């Protein structure tokens, strides 16, 4: 069945023109979190503390913080509230590191532990984002993110 490592990790990198100390609160404070992800969040940023983000009013990500090292690293588990999502709360792990990079920061995100069979059901919730991505790649304006409004 192919190699697991190719399909169970999602990695992203982004350079941000702000120091880690400015970015870090966006990863652990509910009010700042909802400026980039979700419409509502409950975050208790300490090992074992709750990580909960209502992504779009329907899909609610739930897990717990595993490691919180200001201003460089945060690790939390990630799954979905509800039955039959294929990825129960805490099933996968997201690690975000903030590395100083000149005047700014290199942010790295690693989402691991995604079992293959859930990728399909996972994807269902991401159709919305896929449409936005398709719009961008075709040079169209995706418009305001209605999921995040």
């Amino acid at each position, binding site marked *: 069945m192919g190699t697991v490592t190719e399909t169970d990790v999602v990695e992203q990198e982004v350079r*941000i*023109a702000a120091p880690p100390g400015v970015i870090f609160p966006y990863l652990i404070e509910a009010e700042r979190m909802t400026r980039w992800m979700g419409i509502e969040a409950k975050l208790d940023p300490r090992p074992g503390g709750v990580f909960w983000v209502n992504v779009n009013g329907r899909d609610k990500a739930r897990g717990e913080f595993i490691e919180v090292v200001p201003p460089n690293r945060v690790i939390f588990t990630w799954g979905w509230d509800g039955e039959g999502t294929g990825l129960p709360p805490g099933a996968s792990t997201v690690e975000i590191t903030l590395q100083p990079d000149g005047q700014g920061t290199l942010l790295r995100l690693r989402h691991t532990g995604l079992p293959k069979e859930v990728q*399909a059901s996972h994807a269902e919730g991401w159709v919305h984002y896929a449409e936005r991505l398709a719009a961008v790649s075709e040079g169209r304006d995706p418009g305001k993110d209605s999921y995040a409004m």
Partner: protein
Amino acid sequence: MLDLKLHAISQPRRREILRLVRDRELSSGEISSHFEVSRPAVSQHLKILVEAGLIDLRRQGTSRLYRARPEGLNEIRAYLEAFWEDRLGELKHAAEEEYRRVEDGNRD
């Protein structure tokens, strides 16, 4: 092809079928025996999954054997990447905006 895949996985029964044939090849009869619905209904689901490239069909004598195509899911995996890419883009925007405000404030 993406639309086909998304349509294919939007149905819970088809996701169950996908899980069933993830690690082993099964005949349409074996797959049907897992469900309460009629064989034609299951056949229709299988047809949609095959057309979407999510499972492979192999004919052996009179049997039709089905197995998941892992590479078929790679494309779908891209959606999760798109999710984080989109979200991190928003994070970048928010953090940079806040940083600019702080810097401007310091200069005043």
